[in-house]
């Protein structure tokens, strides 16, 4: 029983560590994507987005046709965003440095969502252009 609990706690801890790193790698892989003027206008987000904009950007994402290759990455980052929110409301209240870190991470999640939105807008344009040709 004690061994099972120990294995469970340790594996959940390593799982969280790898999951956080995986989400960060997803976000990092899109960080070099230059944002178009359109997406800046649509979202109204200045150069540095904040975590508060995430929900609004996801709502805008739902209005665009879905690209299958974005879906899983967005779900993983969405889950990461929820975990960060829980951390911000609980542990970060007691540890100020954690507060700064979670805010930065939440902003990273929003940046990722904005990049996905930008790609979806470009995708929608391609579809419209193809339909126009037909």
């Amino acid at each position: 029983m004690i061994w099972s609990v120990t294995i469970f706690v340790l594996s959940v801890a390593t799982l969280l560590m790898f999951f956080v790193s995986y989400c960060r790698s997803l976000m990092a892989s899109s960080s070099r994507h230059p944002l178009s003027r359109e997406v800046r206008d649509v979202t109204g987000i200045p150069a540095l987005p904040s975590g508060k904009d995430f929900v609004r950007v996801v709502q805008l994402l739902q209005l665009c046709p879905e690209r299958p290759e974005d879906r899983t990455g967005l779900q993983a980052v969405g889950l990461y965003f929820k975990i960060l929110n829980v951390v911000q409301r609980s542990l970060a209240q007691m540890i100020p440095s954690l507060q700064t870190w979670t805010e930065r991470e939440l902003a990273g999640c929003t940046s990722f969502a904005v990049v996905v939105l930008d790609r979806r807008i470009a995708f929608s344009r391609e579809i419209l252009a193809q339909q126009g040709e037909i």
Partner: protein
Amino acid sequence: MPGALASFIWLVGTAFELAFVVCSITRKSFFRYFFLNLYFLAVIASSVTRYFFLARFGQGALEYRYAYFFTDVLLTLALYVALISLYSLVFAELQFARYVRLTATLLLLGTALFSYAVVAQSSERLVTTFAYELSQNLYFVGLVLTYILWGAILKLRETRTRLVQFVLALGVYFSAYAASYALVNLASKYSIVFFLGPIVSCLLPLACTITMWRHSEESRLVPAQLVTVER
């Protein structure tokens, strides 16, 4: 025979494994990640073998148990080799590949000897128990090695997106599988926990397929963005 949910999870997992192999062939990376592909092909082959034994002999039959445990140990060995191949890719530029292979072989032999020493004293069915013990121990070694490899990736400031995401997907898989295994021991009265392992097994080929599909071999990450606590 397995129920509808178990069969569905099995089908989804097999589809993802097949998707990874097809994707790496179309992206011309099959030989670059040969051992990872070999592992997923081995998973598909073992699923078919297990299904054949299950359909022919039934779940309680000794033949099915033998097939299950031997395919399991073969899969763990294939995953171990795939992990070592990722080590070789990370350390290739440092000319350490030969030492990595040597250390991996010694570690595998050590794990096999340790597993043999554990089962030799107390078991009647030495071969099956040895296969089970070796599989478990190799999983543990795999988890530790993935953790070390992730440390090395951060230290060496590795930038190759595919390599980084494969290692992280392996890390998530190993730790989630270990957690599901522990949960089965802790809460075996809830039938849902028995599905966690197979569900987790679907995530590895899914994450690898997405990585292979979305990123080219030339894709690079900013290493500083991978570090949780910035330096």
